[in-house]
């Protein structure tokens, strides 16, 4: 049993372990990084910062994705209820627009309003992450077998009972897949926040570009990649194995 549990969770654990090891114990990698950048004065992005940057990164993505889930799933539920049907095309269009609008442009527009720091990137990620969530929630709720809907109504279930006991559980795998896409894409996109003063794993990358230091860029990029892998494999374990 515990063995099975261990194998089930081994992939996310490995990625998480690597991620933390790199975030706190980067100096062991100095020779390797030195090889990528033999001329530079320093190759290690200041150590104390990496873990903090990682946590900030996670925080920004968590807040943006949390909001995107609440808003995206909520909106999709509302427009599939009898009263909200009329708004379905509007919501679907708004969500696609959110993704066609480049996050960089959102950042540029948001800074004058929200100032430098974390908020502009949260807004950009929120908009960018809505589409997969809205689209998948709509697909999940609309794609239910009509016979199941008919039975649920025919047995005398009310709207709320159908939503919580039948529709959401059956649509859950598709909705979760949408959230997974949204979150993993946003982990990478969040790095852009460093350009407007958010301190996260984008910071070493920006610093690397500005100073022409490939080693810095590598550290930021590798950590972001590992974070995305860890979160993605956590998601793939989240879905219950059902027959």
């Amino acid at each position, binding site marked *: 049993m515990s063995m099975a549990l261990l194998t089930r969770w081994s992939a996310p654990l490995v990625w998480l372990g690597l991620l933390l090891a790199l975030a706190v114990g980067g100096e062991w990698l100095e020779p390797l990084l030195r090889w990528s950048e033999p001329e530079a004065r320093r190759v290690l992005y200041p150590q104390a910062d990496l873990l903090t940057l990682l946590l900030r990164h996670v925080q920004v993505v968590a807040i943006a994705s949390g909001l995107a889930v609440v808003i995206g799933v909520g909106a999709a539920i509302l427009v599939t209820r009898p009263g909200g049907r009329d708004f379905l095309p509007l919501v679907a269009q708004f969500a696609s627009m959110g993704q066609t609008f480049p996050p960089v442009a959102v950042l540029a527009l948001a800074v004058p309003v929200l100032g430098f720091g974390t908020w502009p990137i949260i807004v950009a990620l929120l908009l960018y992450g809505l589409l997969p969530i809205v689209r998948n929630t709509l697909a999940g709720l609309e794609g239910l077998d009509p*016979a*199941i809907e008919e039975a649920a109504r025919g047995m005398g279930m009310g709207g709320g009972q159908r939503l919580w006991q039948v529709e959401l559980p*059956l649509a859950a795998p598709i909705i979760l897949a949408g959230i997974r896409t949204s979150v993993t894409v946003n982990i990478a996109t969040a790095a852009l926040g460093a350009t407007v003063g958010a301190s996260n794993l984008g910071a070493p990358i920006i610093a690397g570009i500005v100073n022409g230091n490939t080693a810095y860029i590598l550290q930021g990029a590798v950590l972001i990649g590992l974070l995305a892998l860890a979160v993605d494999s956590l998601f793939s374990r989240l879905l219950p194995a059902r027959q």
Partner: protein
Amino acid sequence: MIELKSVTKRFGGETAVDAISLTVNRGELCALVGTSGCGKSTTLRMINRLIEHDGGEIHIDGRPIREFDGRILRRRIGYAIQSTGLFPHWSVARNIGLVPRLLKWPAARVGERVEELMALLGLPVEQFADKYPSQLSGGQAQRVGVARALAADPDILLMDEPFGALDPITREGLQGELRDLQSRLQKTIVFVTHDMDEALALADRLVVMNAGRIVQQGRPLELLRAPADDFVASLLGGDDRGLKEAAITRVAERMQPLSLRLLPQARVHRDATLRQALAVMFREHADRLAVIDDEALPVGELSLRRIVGAGREGGSDT
């Protein structure tokens, strides 16, 4: 009791159900038959208000159904659909217990009721209670669907091709159960089927629909003997109608008292149908049969002449 008074339903410009009037009394089983798309399912769905009727009136136990809250009404009416509509993420037991739980029965009573129904429908509890719908055969899933419809012991049952995917033996068993249930517990049942033998065997009232209208309704024998038009005649089996009539007439209705003549070897049970009696005659090359009771004692005799009705005086047929 269910009463429909010139009930109409339109979808867009199309009239799916056209001014039908129908009364199903308490304890009666009404079978709806007709070609695909003639409005049978629509009629059922209007009775439990899954869809609202556009014209006419529907009354249940004397009250117009619009006076009821739709959900409360549907919990009172058992509903079984052909495609079963079982919830794939729930176990068989949980699916069956749905309506009792909606009615807030105590958990223990729900559990007892579920076991009772599984036994009634031939689904051993140990084997099936924890299975999921995807692990069932088509026939097993239909039985679960019927069990779910019966779960809260509703007075009224609407059944839309509930036995379509069953093998003949299980199907006959369940037809028997249904008839028993109906006569014992006075259920009012509206039953849709494409199987004419099933309709004839079960129905107190047979309703033939075509293109949204009721073409003819009455007792099965009446329709078999006097179909209103060619459509009804061919739906009821064309030239096969005679055999269908034989299939719903009991031997006991046609047999004669024992005479002094020697009893034939070939035997048939008094509760068998005339059709079965004919089959025995055909197989045994006999034109006379001994009629026996449960103890295999002879209680009468049946001749081919009696079966075909030639030997009856005054035609005491009802």
